[in-house]
């Protein structure tokens, strides 16, 4: 593709995470809009499904996708609008991966026990 190995992986991950988050967003606005039907409406029934552990693991993936996509997006903006950005695209990509992992630690620390406890 267009910028050697890391650039290509950065792009593939950016695409996949972006499409995943966008599709989640479409579903998510529908689920929240179910509150329009009131307390006796379909919202709670939908939530039962949302609170199942496979879905909660999926939500962790959504969080990871948002964090990676957002940070990598900032990297793309730096490459587009600075004179030095493209030169440092590789270290910046490792920075994006590292920051995503670091942010992942407290997130997993909090959410995984919640899932294991079953709520």
């Amino acid at each position, binding site marked *: *593709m*267009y910028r050697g190995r890391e650039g290509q992986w950065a792009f593939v991950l950016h*695409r996949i995470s*972006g*499409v995943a*988050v*966008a*599709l989640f*967003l*479409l579903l998510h*606005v*529908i689920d*929240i*809009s179910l*509150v*329009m039907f*009131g*307390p006796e409406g379909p*919202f*709670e029934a939908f*939530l039962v499904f*949302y*609170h199942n552990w496979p879905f*909660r693991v999926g*939500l962790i993936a959504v*969080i990871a996708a*948002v*964090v990676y996509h*957002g*940070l990598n*997006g*900032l990297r*793309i*903006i730096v*490459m*587009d*609008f600075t004179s030095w950005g*493209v030169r440092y695209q590789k270290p910046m990509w490792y920075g994006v991966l590292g920051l995503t992992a670091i942010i992942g630690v*407290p*997130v997993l620390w*909090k*959410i995984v026990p*919640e*899932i294991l406890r079953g*709520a």
Partner: protein
Amino acid sequence: MSTAQRAKAKRPRTFDEARAMASSSSELGWWVFMRISGMLLVPLAFIHLWANNMAFNAGEIDFAYVVARLQQPGVRIFNSFLLLFAMLHGVNGLRYSIEDYVRRPERRFLWKMILFTVAGIIFIFGVMTLWAFTYEEMGSAVRALGSE
């Protein structure tokens, strides 16, 4: 490399390249919009994820919780910006993907029309959820149910 030469690369990397490559001025506008909305979405999405996953247990989200959140004007205004920018940024991103992977012009057109129609309807749902209700009333309805 001149700007024009670099513009031959697959994806534009600077504003000048984007201008040289853009097939129309609206494409250039979207290129700029993706970057501006992207910068706004980092704080918007991160704060939203923080509020619902870190400051709260997402496994305990229920009707009462959402109504309590949507009662707050600040949450509604915040969510309106999140909804607007995430929808435009997300749908435009999906459109880029359709343009990259769907080769046949008729299919491409069809997929885009399906995307815009579905996304448009969902966006209207989102706006209605945020602004067409008085959640104060819904909140008291929930409290009444809870005390029965």
